[in-house]
C-alpha cells in the first residue's frame, strides 16, 4: 500500500513536471532539421524496394494490381492514395494488404499473412507508388465507406479499457501539444499518420505499419487490442485518413518515426 502511494506521489510530481515541460521537450529547429535529413537515408527504403520485388514475383507487380483493381496503371497512384476503399468484388471496405491477399486467392496461391514481414514490405511498396499524391479518401463515395467512417469515428471516440480511455482522450484537438511520457502529443492529421505509415520506427529498428502502431498505442492505454485487418481496424484507418486529408496532406512512404 505504501509502495502504491509512493509511486502515485512520484507519478503526480512527474506528471506536473511533464505538463509544464512542453517547452523542454519540444524539438529545437536544429534537431528537427537533423531528423528530417535522416529521411533521405531511411533503412525502410530497402524494405520498400524488397516489397516491390516480392510483388513482382508473386503477383505480377503493379500492372497486375491495377488490373485487379480495375484502374489504369496511370490512375493507380491516385487511386492508392484513396485507401481504404470499398472494393465491390470483395464486398468489403479493405486495405491494400487485403487486396493483395485477395489477388493471391484469385491466383490459387497461398495467402501471405497480413501480420508478416513480407506483407509489411509489400504494403509499404504499394503505398509508396502513391507518393506525392494528395490523400483523397472519399467517405461519401458509397454507403459502405460511409458506414466504415462512422464506425471509425465511433471506435476513436469510445472510452474503453481499465482506465476508461478513448483514442480521443489523448488525440483530441485540445490535448495536442501536451506532453505524455516525454513526447508532445501529435495532431494525427498534421503529422499525416495516413500518409507516413508504414514507417521505419527507430525504437523498433524495423518497418511498422499503421495498424501495428495503433495496436502499440492501445496496449499502452490499456485498451484491448483490435485485430489487424478487422472491420474496426480498417474503420480506424478510414477515420485517420480523413484527418490527414482535411489538412491537405500527401503520401510520403516510407516515413521515419521515433
Amino acid at each position, binding site marked *: 500500500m505504501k509502495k502504491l502511494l509512493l*509511486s*502515485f506521489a512520484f*507519478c*503526480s510530481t*512527474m*506528471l506536473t513536471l*511533464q*505538463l509544464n515541460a512542453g517547452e523542454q*521537450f519540444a*524539438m*529545437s529547429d*536544429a*534537431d528537427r532539421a*537533423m*531528423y528530417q*535529413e*535522416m529521411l533521405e537515408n531511411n533503412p525502410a527504403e530497402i524494405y520498400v524496394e524488397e516489397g516491390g520485388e516480392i510483388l513482382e514475383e508473386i503477383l505480377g507487380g503493379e500492372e497486375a494490381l491495377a488490373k485487379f483493381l480495375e484502374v489504369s496503371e496511370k490512375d493507380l497512384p491516385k487511386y492508392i492514395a484513396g485507401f481504404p476503399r470499398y472494393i465491390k468484388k470483395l464486398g468489403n471496405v479493405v486495405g491494400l494488404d487485403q487486396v493483395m491477399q485477395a489477388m493471391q486467392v484469385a491466383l490459387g496461391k497461398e495467402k501471405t499473412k497480413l501480420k508478416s514481414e513480407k506483407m509489411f514490405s509489400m504494403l509499404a511498396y504499394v503505398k509508396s507508388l502513391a507518393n506525392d499524391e494528395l490523400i483523397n479518401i472519399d467517405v461519401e463515395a458509397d454507403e459502405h465507406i460511409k458506414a466504415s467512417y462512422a464506425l471509425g469515428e465511433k471506435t476513436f471516440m469510445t472510452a474503453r479499457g481499465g*482506465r*476508461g*480511455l478513448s483514442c480521443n*482522450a*489523448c488525440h483530441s484537438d485540445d*490535448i495536442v501539444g*501536451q506532453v*505524455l*511520457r*516525454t*513526447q508532445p502529443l501529435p495532431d494525427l492529421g498534421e503529422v499525416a499518420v495516413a500518409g507516413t505509415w508504414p514507417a521505419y520506427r*527507430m*525504437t523498433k*529498428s524495423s518497418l511498422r505499419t499503421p495498424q501495428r*502502431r495503433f495496436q*502499440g*498505442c492501445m*496496449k*499502452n*492505454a*490499456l485498451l484491448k487490442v483490435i485485430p489487424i485487418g478487422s472491420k474496426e481496424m480498417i474503420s480506424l484507418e478510414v477515420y485517420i485518413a480523413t484527418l490527414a486529408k482535411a489538412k491537405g496532406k500527401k503520401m510520403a512512404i516510407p516515413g521515419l518515426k*521515433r
Partner: protein
Amino acid sequence: MKRRIFLKSICTVSAIAVTAPSTLLAKEAMKGENALSYDAAVMAITSGKAVTASDKVKLVVPEIAENGAVVPVKVHVESPMTDTDYVKAIHVLSSKNGNARCADVMLTPLNGKGYFATRVKLGATQDVVALVEMSDGTFLRAAKSVKVTIGGCG
C-alpha cells in the same frame, strides 16, 4: 479536469525518465566482450598524445535525442585534404556506453572533405565525442552532450 485524471492514470502505468536513473545507466553500461571505457579508448587511439579541443572539428548531434537507439552524428573537419595535409582518421566515441567506441574511420585525400556521418546507440544521456587524427600526427577533439529521453508511447 476529467482529462487531467485520465492523463494522471496513464502516468501510473508508464515508465518515464528524462535522464536515465542510475540503475538504467548501470544496465546499459553492462560489460560486453568489447567493453572499453572512454579513457581507455582514447588511450588506445592516441597512445597518450596530447588532444586539443578545436573549432576546426564541427560535431553535429541532436540536443535531445528522440530515442537512444538511433542518434544521428555528423563530423565535419576543416582540412584541404591534400596529400600532405588531410584528415587521417575520425573516431566517434561516447562517454558512457559500455564500449565507448562507435566507429574509427580512416580517410584519405581522395575523400575530398574531412567528413563522416553515422547513427549510434546511446544508452543514456552522455557526451558524443569526435576524436580526429590529422596527417601531421596531431589529435583534435570536439564533444557535445546529448540528452536521451526514455519514454514515449507504443
